[in-house]
């Protein structure tokens, strides 16, 4: 964990509201970045917004390139999308508790919503076996990074709310048949989707690892603003920090 004033190399629209930003960030990349790690970015030029924004690491390239895929949702990400190459942003990271990579025999099944396919890309990239990407969105315009997964040999199954591509319905509808032991289930997407996954996995006693998303102040465990209910081992719950004990939790740990 460290901070670095990282220079933007490129910052371009990927699709619809999604952008990919590439930073030169040799210090942070020299840390051992794993899938599920996130970085906390001070978006430059927004003085009245004092908080950093958390983004999962999408990819690292060579020894000094860090990539993030982000969706424009509010004032911070909107401004982010206007930053030109050459601008520097202070980045704090890598942060959080990463995914565990699939072991030899396991076939990874990545269940993605929203920016989830970006947050889980490093799992795919580092997996011994190609696996399956189950990806959901409101419509086909919001499906991102499918080509990148295909190039890694992943099978792609799509669900859209409006049926504009693939299965019409929820991506979790596609998950049922992978709730088996030869698969290793990973998830990242909007919280309601994550909680559906928790319910499905826990009721079938299948293991899974899910990355949860909560607004954060510090990002390092110091402020307790980002908590999520996890099982306390005595039938009850306790609050755990998304930034420190998470963002990746075992689905069996998450309390509903």
């Amino acid at each position: 964990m460290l901070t670095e004033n990282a220079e933007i190399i490129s910052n371009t629209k990927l699709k619809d509201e999604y952008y990919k930003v590439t930073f030169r960030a040799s210090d942070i990349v020299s840390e051992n970045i794993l899938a599920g790690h996130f970085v906390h970015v001070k978006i430059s030029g927004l003085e009245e917004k004092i908080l950093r924004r958390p983004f999962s690491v999408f990819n690292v390239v060579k020894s000094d390139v860090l990539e993030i895929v982000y969706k424009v949702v509010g004032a911070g990400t909107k401004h982010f999308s206007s930053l030109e190459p050459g601008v520097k942003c202070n980045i704090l990271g890598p942060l959080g508790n990463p995914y565990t990579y699939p072991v030899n025999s396991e076939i990874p099944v990545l269940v993605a919503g929203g920016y989830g396919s970006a947050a889980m890309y490093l799992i795919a990239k580092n997996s011994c076996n190609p696996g399956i990407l189950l990806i959901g969105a409101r419509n086909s315009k919001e499906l991102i990074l499918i080509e990148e997964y295909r190039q890694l040999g992943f099978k792609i199954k799509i669900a859209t709310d409006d049926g504009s591509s693939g299965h019409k319905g929820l991506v979790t509808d596609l998950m049922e048949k992978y709730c088996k032991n030869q698969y290793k289930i990973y998830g990242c997407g909007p919280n309601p989707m994550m909680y559906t996954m928790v319910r499905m996995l826990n009721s079938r006693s299948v293991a899974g690892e899910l990355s949860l998303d909560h607004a954060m102040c510090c990002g390092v465990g110091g402020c307790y603003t980002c908590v999520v209910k996890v099982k306390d081992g005595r039938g009850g719950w306790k609050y755990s920090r998304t930034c420190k004990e998470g963002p990746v939790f075992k689905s069996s740990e998450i309390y509903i």
Partner: protein
Amino acid sequence: MADFKTELGKVTLKNPVMTASGTFGYGYEYAELYPLDKLGAVVVKGISLDPVSGNPMPRHAEITSGVINAVGLQNPGVEEFINGEKYLPFLRKSNAAAVINIWGKTINEYVEVAEILNEQNGITALEINISCPNIKEGGIAFGTDLKMANKVVSEIRKVTTLPLVTKLSPNVTRIADFAKTVVDAGSDMISLINTLTGMVIDIETRKPVLANKIGGVSGPAVKPVAVKLVHEVYNAVDVPIIGMGGIQNGSDAIEFMLAGADAVAVGTAVFSDPYAPLKVIEEIGQYLDRHNIKSVKDIVGRLESV
């Protein structure tokens, strides 16, 4: 190089820059970034007698030039704090001066926490957070009722020889009265400000953004209010003052010191820059050197008249 030694009554710190309770966890969270003993002191998140799970989410919102929070004082309780490896034992090993922020729902709870901590080594001072609502003694926050503020401090005073800092709420009509009464009750120092009470509403859902409905405002937005209150307390009492509220850089810290703060704490600023406390130390040094001031204590209270 100017002399940074900071004497707060019986307490001597290597420099006047601390962290603010609740923004710096228990220290270990930041120890990966820099050695904690570079700081004047680490002030930990508020500790209570029993473990407390805190408020439901959402617990904060970003506001213009600040943050509003209602974490609800989540903490592991004093026993775990004393014994859990990452808490007090870690701070001891770090060699940082450790100020333990404490609170309770009743005066008894405050007293018990103070009593338990009194037995511990490696504690520099206790900071009494009187800005939390009490339940047993009538539902008024201790920090907005003069008698209760006096009572809680004087009861704690009886059970501990540790230096006591009382942390004042800014949400009062005449803060000087609170300063005087807690000093009368035996407080060795005063820290201020705690957060300003506020509310943020989501106009689409028509609900308060915070699950707790109201919360505490901190960050640059509150700085002028904080500086004024520090100065008011400085004029009212003779004990050392720890000033905070929106400090982001050396210049901000010097404002507080000129207004009367012997030391300062950096809170919300660590959210945008975890190195902010170190930056503040460095920039205070540059200011002192530039003005040929030998010791940091020589700027305390040196506000000149207009």
